[in-house]
């Protein structure tokens, strides 16, 4: 089972994540597209770990998951504060520093 299939899938998922990040307006959906990109990268790491017969790829995936958790926690706290102050989750309405 060639590894290139997994890498192609990872590339497609990453591309879809970028499309979501660029085109969506809701800030939480943008955040979820970032998580999709991180997941695609995890798949690539594990595929390479299997292709090269090493386990460092899996260690790195472990760290990526942990960092994604920390980032999601702080990022969502920021989103809550923004929503409280601007009363909107639309990124086009929070592009000015003035309230």
């Amino acid at each position, binding site marked *: 089972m060639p*590894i290139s299939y997994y890498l192609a899938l990872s590339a497609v998922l990453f*591309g879809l994540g970028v499309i979501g990040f660029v085109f969506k307006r809701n800030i939480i959906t943008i955040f979820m597209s970032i998580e999709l990109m991180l997941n695609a990268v995890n798949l690539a790491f594990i595929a390479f770990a299997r292709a090269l017969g090493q386990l460092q790829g899996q260690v790195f995936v472990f760290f990526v998951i942990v960092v994604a958790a920390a980032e999601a926690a702080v990022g969502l706290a920021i989103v*809550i504060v923004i929503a409280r102050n601007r009363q909107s989750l639309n990124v086009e309405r929070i592009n000015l520093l003035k309230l």
Partner: protein
Amino acid sequence: MTPQLEIFLILAAIAVAGAVSVILQREPIHSAISLITVMIALAGLFLLLESEFIAAVQIIVYAGAIMVLFVFVIMLLNAGAEERTNMSRMARYVGVPLAIFLLIELAYQVGAATSSMTAQPAADGATRGLSMLLFQDFVFPFELTSILILIAILGALVLAQRSEGAPAQRAQQ
């Protein structure tokens, strides 16, 4: 068509369908559910690549805790449907086909560049090897990530608190 290839195609189809659904859905909660489906399909792919521990961690931590956080915030903020404006003609007839073509091209090039790699047999049990690496070679980053999580907890707590003094000040004015 070996059984492995069949399972890979099914899981890959679910992952791509879920990812497209994340982008196309109107309500954020439906996007969240689609993303959870993508993560579970990816966990299945990790199992195919013989990393059972990472597959379990992906479901327990990523799909079972981080996405729960997303769902909570969506429910808390009562995030409703997105406003849908029509795409310009350029975007709809030129942009979307170009985007799809870009994705296919990306997948093809990545696949072709690495087509010579084949899967090597895994070393001793993946879980055992992973924990040896994590606690011997990578113990310093491991401890650092625990401090990172502590910082994230404190940051989230401080950021999401309602400031106690603000309503009183406004009342005074």
